[in-house]
C-alpha cells in the first residue's frame, strides 16, 4: 500500500503570495493532520480533519486554512506569505479519531518544503 503522499515536493514563493499544498492519506485513513516543521525544531500542529470536518486547530493565524475532500485527501492553504512561513509542511494520516488506541497513530508523508523569499 502506498503511504501518505504530498505535493509538490518543493516550492519557492515570494512574500505576500498564496500557496496550496496537497496531501493524500493512506488508503482507508479518514483523518488528516497538518504540521509545520521549522529547521531544527519538532513539528508544530496546525490542523486536524476527520470526515471532512475540522476537528482541531493549533496556534496559527487565520492566514492558514485547510479542507478535506470526500476522498479524504486534503489541502492546506497559506495566504499572504511571510518569510517566517518557510518550513517543511508535513501531512499525517490516521485511521480513526478519538478512539484513543493505536488507530489514532499518525503516519507522516515526506513533506513539502516551502521557501518564502
Amino acid at each position, binding site marked *: 500500500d502506498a503511504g*501518505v503522499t504530498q505535493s509538490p515536493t518543493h516550492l519557492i514563493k515570494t512574500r505576500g503570495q498564496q500557496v496550496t499544498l496537497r496531501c493524500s492519506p493512506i488508503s482507508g485513513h479518514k483523518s488528516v*493532520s497538518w504540521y509545520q516543521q521549522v529547521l*531544527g*525544531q*519538532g*513539528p*508544530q*500542529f496546525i490542523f*486536524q480533519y*476527520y470526515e471532512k470536518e475540522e*476537528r*482541531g486547530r493549533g496556534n496559527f493565524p487565520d492566514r492558514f486554512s485547510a479542507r478535506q475532500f470526500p476522498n479524504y485527501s486534503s489541502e492546506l492553504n497559506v495566504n499572504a506569505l511571510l518569510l517566517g512561513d518557510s518550513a*517543511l509542511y*508535513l501531512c499525517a494520516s*490516521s485511521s480513526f*479519531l*478519538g478512539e*484513543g488506541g*493505536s488507530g*489514532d*497513530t*499518525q*503516519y*507522516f*508523508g*515526506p*513533506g513539502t*518544503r516551502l521557501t518564502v523569499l
Partner: protein
Amino acid sequence: QKEVEQDPGPLSVPEGAIVSLNCTYSNSAFQYFMWYRQYSRKGPELLMYTYSSGNKEDGRFTAQVDKSSKYISLFIRDSQPSDSATYLCAMRVMNSGGYQKVTFGTGTKLQVIP
C-alpha cells in the same frame, strides 16, 4: 515552560554502542507516547508507540515510560550507521472536541560513527 523537553544533542557514538534518548514532559494528561525517526529532508517515521508505564521492546529498540516522573526514553542497542538520524519524541492527548493533540519534542540528532 515547554510541554515537552528533549535533550537537543547532537549525540555522536561509535558503531555498536548503546544509545539513550530522553524526553521529559509537564502535561500529566498525555496518554500516548511515540518515538519517530526522521532522516534529513524526510518526514518522520514511527518507531515505537506506547501507552502505559514500563518497557516495550522491538528488535534493537526499547521504549521506556515512567509516568510518575513524566519521563520517557528510547534505547538503541548495537547502534548502526543507518541509525544516524534525528529522533523525535511525541506525546498525545485527546482534547475536548474529540481530536488528538500531538506535541513533539525538538528532536535529538544522532550520528553513529563506523
